[in-house]
Each structure stands twice: as C-alpha cells, then as structure tokens.
C-alpha cells in the first residue's frame, strides 16, 4: 500500500515537472523550441527594477558557467521587424567586457553604447534618448570596469591625438578621487567608480528628455563596475 502511494507520488511529481518544463520551453508545431525574443508586450511588462533583476541574473549565469543555450538563427528573423530591448548599457570599448556575454543576453535584448572609458558625449546622449524615448528601454546602465586603460591614461594625464580630449572627460573623476597612482589597482577602481558616477550625473544634467523619464520613474539609471578578473558585475548604490 505504502509502495503504491509512493509510486503514485512519483508519477505525479514527474507529471508536474514535465508540465513546468513545457511551460518554460514553448514548442511550435514542428517541435522546435520557439525563439524567445523581447517583444513589445514583454518589454512593456518590465519595470526598471525587473530589468535590473534580469541583468543581475544574467551576470550570475555567466559567473556560474551556466549560460543559456540559444538558437541564434531563430532569433535573427524573430527580431528583424523591430527591436524591443529592455536596457541600454553604456560601457567601455575594452575587448574584455562584451556586454551581451557578461550579462548572458541574446539578440534584441540590450542596446549597446560603447566607447573608451564609458564617457558621455552628445552622440551617446542622443543614442540613450533614442533608446528610452523611441525604443522603450526601461533601464540605463553605466558600466565601468577594473583595470581600465582609459582611466589609467587619465590618471597619468597622457596625451595622444584624439584620445587627449576623451581622457580630459575622465579627469574630474581623478580629481574627485584624491591623489593616487595608475599602478595601484584599488585606486584605479576607485577612479573608475567616480567616472561612472560622473557619467550618470552628466546624463541627468545634459538630457532633459532622460531626466523627465527618470523623475517619472518610467526609466531607471544605475551604475556598475565589472571586475575583469572575476567576471562579476557589482551594481553601485545610488
């Protein structure tokens, strides 16, 4: 009797597991996994908080070596008619922080703006205004990283062609961080954080469109630092 109850319990459990598995992996008529891409509906259902949660979970998957397997070529036609990403990420050009990989995101998920030292200029502000106002992203992330060459260059006050002007944009973050050396990793990270805060401040001050959406709570703005040796993204407190 007890054994029968146990067996029935197992069957019920197996049914429940298969039902939940089906719910998570919708299949089409041919039995192929349907391409899960961001749609206007899924984008509208998100908030700045839930968008941030998606990025945190994605980075945890990356760090835990548990990245999603994606059918990329199913996502391409599925996103061809429009994009509905949930976040815009301003990050450094550094080859070590490919944003889609470190946040384990697919095609059509995040809007990417990248430049040395993740500084803010007019074209990027325009890109962010487009991302929030037209494309409908819920969250803007300014992502700095450890061992940033541009930050080190700014600390050393280096001069090189068009880079000189770019580094000048990081100098206020150096001043705000007090004295230190580009050989001191902790100091470089401190300046990188100050540089993220500086970029966030500039976004608020230089874009009335974005400020309006931030004030209304329809869009969020967060800063973060990516650690190039551990792969972990640490979101900064407000």
């Amino acid at each position, binding site marked *: 009797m007890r054994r029968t109850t146990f067996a029935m319990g197992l069957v019920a459990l197996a049914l429940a597991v298969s039902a939940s598995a089906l719910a998570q992996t919708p299949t089409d008529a041919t039995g192929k996994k349907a391409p899960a891409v961001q749609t206007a509906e899924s984008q509208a259902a998100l908030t700045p908080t839930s968008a941030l949660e998606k990025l945190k979970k994605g980075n945890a998957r990356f760090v835990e070596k548990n990245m999603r397997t994606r059918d990329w070529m199913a996502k391409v036609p599925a*996103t*061809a008619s429009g994009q509905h990403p949930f976040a815009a990420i301003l990050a450094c050009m550094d*080859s070590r922080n490919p944003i*889609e*990989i470190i946040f384990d995101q697919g095609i059509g998920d995040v809007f990417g703006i990248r430049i040395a030292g993740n500084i803010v200029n007019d074209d990027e502000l325009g890109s962010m205004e487009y991302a929030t106002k037209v494309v409908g992203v819920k969250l803007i992330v300014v992502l700095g990283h450890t061992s940033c*060459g541009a930050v080190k260059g700014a600390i050393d006050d280096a001069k090189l062609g*068009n880079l000189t002007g770019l580094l000048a944009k990081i100098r206020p973050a150096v001043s705000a961080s007090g004295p230190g050396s580009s050989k001191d990793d902790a100091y470089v990270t401190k300046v990188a954080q100050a540089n993220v805060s500086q970029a966030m401040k500039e976004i608020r001050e230089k874009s009335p469109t974005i400020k309006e959406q931030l004030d209304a709570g329809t869009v969020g703005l967060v800063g973060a630092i990516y650690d190039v040796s551990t792969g972990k993204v640490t979101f900064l407190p407000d």
Partner: protein
Amino acid sequence: MVAVSLLGASQFARAADPAHPDQPIVSPAEAISRLKEGNGRFTAGNPQHPHDSVDERKYMAANSYENAGTIPLGMTSEQAAKRRAELAKSQHPFAIILSCSDSRVPPEIVFDEGLGDLFIVRVAGDVLNDEGLGSIEYAVDILGARLIDV
C-alpha cells in the same frame, strides 16, 4: 562590410608589424577572414562561442601581469613592447568594430568571438565623433589592433 586595413597585407606575409614586433601577428587580411568565418559559423547556426567562458577569463587574468587594456598611455614604445610581450599569450584582440547600438547587432555574437577578441565602439547609427576616433586611436596605437571594421 567596410573594412580599413592599416597596413598592406603583404607586409605580414614574412615579417611582424614593426611598430608592434611582439604582438601576435594578425594581419588585416587574416582579421577579415576571421570575422567572415565567425559570421559564417553564426549564420550556419553553429557558433563555437570562443573565449566566452569564465575559465577563459580566469586564464587571461592569471597568465598576464596586466592586460592589453591596461597598457598605460605614458609608456615609451620599448616599455609598451615589453608589456605586450607579457600579454601576448593571453590577449588576442585582432580588430576594432565601429557599429550601431541596435540591440540586434551585438558584434561579439554575430562574429562569434568572445572575451578579449574585439574592441568595440558603438553608438546609434555608427557615427564617428572625436571620442570614438580617440578610442580607435588607442586600440591601434597602444594596443596594436590592425583592422578597423565599420
């Protein structure tokens, strides 16, 4: 694909790039074919996801005193060459991509590359401004990338 080679491909047939003698040699022509092959893998539905694991990142961190992204701008060319030699085993960015911010065009994914492979400048409409140009100059002059792909 609009690609800009920074030096004639023939120069790479025999000798290393004289400006970056210890950089692993990825000529403009070779870089273009790597990008084409990567995109071929992607469109064939057979991406290999090179260098995108946590292990790869740990290898890069453990095997280099510092990474290519950390070569200080104030270094002399001799110092920079020495630093690049230290990095050569672990860091392999071979091209710079200037592309659009559009969420459907993540360069590392469509070219099937991973951590440490590509320098990326992205802005809506892939327009070039002074800071974008400065970023590219940094990747070319300091880090030795030899292909710019717009």
